[in-house]
């Protein structure tokens, strides 16, 4: 198929906390693993795209400098939580356009613990107490409880589900099961969200080598990146105001529609999804925004068990960000690496049997949302 793009290899530095290790060191591990997996240990890619948010000037260049693989164009990409997906989107587009045959895409991050202090917020918003991202998450959670049949127990159970899955992921930060009661009784962050319903910003790296398709590998069936439309007050662009009469579709829905159209597939064709679970409510929101269920149906859809392992459409078999943590530049590519392994039947104890089509979703600051569909 003309314009087809496939994955030649993947690599990961596990997500967690690694004192004394620089972000470049993390990136090196992921990039070397991906190049080795693709049979390109000493180069052969024609461009590189690096997603990262907090790594400073030309961070991607430092990784490739250390490997002696410079000279090709190297582009560092920042798009909040979707940075890695934005880098991937550029790489896919570059191959589709015919400009390159093989590109390296990677993402890496090293973040402090706790609420992220983001230069996104003007100083006065911090001073006024309005730079409080978890509170925006909590408002979305409350809306789901009011309009989508979601309960506090369900919010807790999403975390239970993802941690249960994460036990089987050696690359995850938290590999421990929790009960609904433990999640509900963990520290209250912003009502109704408790600490164990939130993911941890952390450290890690992921890399993917893309090449022109047609060699029988796992194919990028679609890659779509979208920003928000004006109107909503609950989006990741965390505005100060919006419209009561808000009919603007969220960026995730825009990206999902574009991706399904590009792939010629629909939600019913998916075998598994990796979706943004920055907090439990974000995962449930994503079900509706991606079209896995109808608007207002996230609660009953979750309660029916579809997204559990063994269900019709397992979501976050990797353990999600709730288990892995969220190194911003790397997290979206972490989802791609997971799908690649799942579609190749290499996911071990968390394998989704017979997986052929998977969707990876990220949404974050900007707002930016990405939806990538992989198939074999």
């Amino acid at each position, binding site marked *: 198929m003309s314009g087809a793009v496939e994955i030649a290899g993947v690599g990961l530095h596990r997500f967690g906390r690694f004192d004394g290790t620089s972000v470049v060191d993390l990136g090196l591990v992921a990039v070397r693993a991906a190049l080795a997996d693709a049979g390109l240990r000493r180069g052969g890619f024609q461009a590189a795209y690096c997603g990262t948010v907090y790594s400073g000037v030309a961070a991607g260049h430092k990784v490739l400098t250390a490997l002696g693989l410079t000279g090709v164009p190297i582009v560092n990409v920042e798009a909040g939580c979707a940075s890695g997906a934005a880098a991937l989107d550029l790489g896919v587009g570059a191959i589709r356009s015919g400009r390159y045959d093989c590109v390296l895409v990677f993402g890496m991050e090293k973040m402090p613990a706790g*609420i*992220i*202090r983001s230069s996104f*917020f*003007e*100083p*006065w918003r*911090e*001073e*006024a*107490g*309005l*730079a*409080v991202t978890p*509170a*925006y998450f*909590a*408002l979305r959670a*409350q*809306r789901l409880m*009011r309009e989508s049949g979601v309960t506090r127990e369900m919010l807790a159970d999403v975390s239970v589900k993802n941690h249960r899955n994460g036990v089987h992921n050696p690359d995850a930060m938290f590999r421990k099961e929790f009960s609904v009661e433990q999640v509900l009784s963990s520290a*209250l*962050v*912003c*009502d*109704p969200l408790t600490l164990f319903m939130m993911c941890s910003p952390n450290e890690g790296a992921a890399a993917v080598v893309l090449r022109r398709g047609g060699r029988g590998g796992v194919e990028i069936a679609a890659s779509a990146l979208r920003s928000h439309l*004006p*109107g909503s*007050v*609950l989006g990741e662009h*965390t*505005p*100060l*105001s*919006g*419209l*009561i*009469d*808000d009919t603007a579709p969220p960026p995730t829905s825009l990206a999902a529609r574009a991706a399904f159209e590009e792939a010629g597939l629909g939600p019913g064709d998916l075998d598994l999804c990796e979706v943004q679970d920055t907090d439990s409510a974000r995962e449930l929101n994503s079900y509706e925004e991606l079209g896995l269920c109808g608007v207002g149906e996230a609660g009953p859809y979750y309660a029916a068990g579809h997204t559990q392992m063994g269900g019709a459409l397992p979501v976050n078999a990797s353990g999600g960000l709730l288990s892995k943590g969220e190194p911003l530049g790397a997290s979206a590519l972490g989802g791609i690496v997971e799908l690649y392994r799942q579609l190749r039947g290499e996911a071990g104890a968390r394998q989704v049997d017979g997986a052929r089509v998977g969707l990876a979703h990220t949404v974050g600051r900007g707002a930016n949302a990405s939806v990538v569909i992989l198939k074999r």
Partner: protein
Amino acid sequence: MSASRPVRDGLFRDCGDGTARLLGARCADCARYHFPRAEVCPYCSCDSCSAADLGPRGRLWLYTAVLRPPPGYRGVVPFGFGVVDLEEGVRIVARLTEGDPARLRSGQPMLLVVEHLHDDDGTRVETYAFAAAEEG
């Protein structure tokens, strides 16, 4: 009496009667209101917006509370955080003076007020916030 300053100029106006107004604008083309005030409409990109004060009355839509000081914040916790729908068709994300969500309910009338954040070298730093209002 100590001096006071808004947390940022151009956000709100203290009416002196216990209420405040947000300094917003209305687009001449799409007729929608926005806040904070800008020359270009954030909904339709038209560049002929005119100043309009917003508030003080609205109804609470969503709410939570912030329990620990977020980055860069020097005021007291807990404080309320929520979304209030104004009569002008604008939805405002703002602080709420009520820090206990159990004492709030969706749809309740709210009033825009000036709230004391903290003192900066003897100067009172103020912002806008919504307080629960009497039914009516």
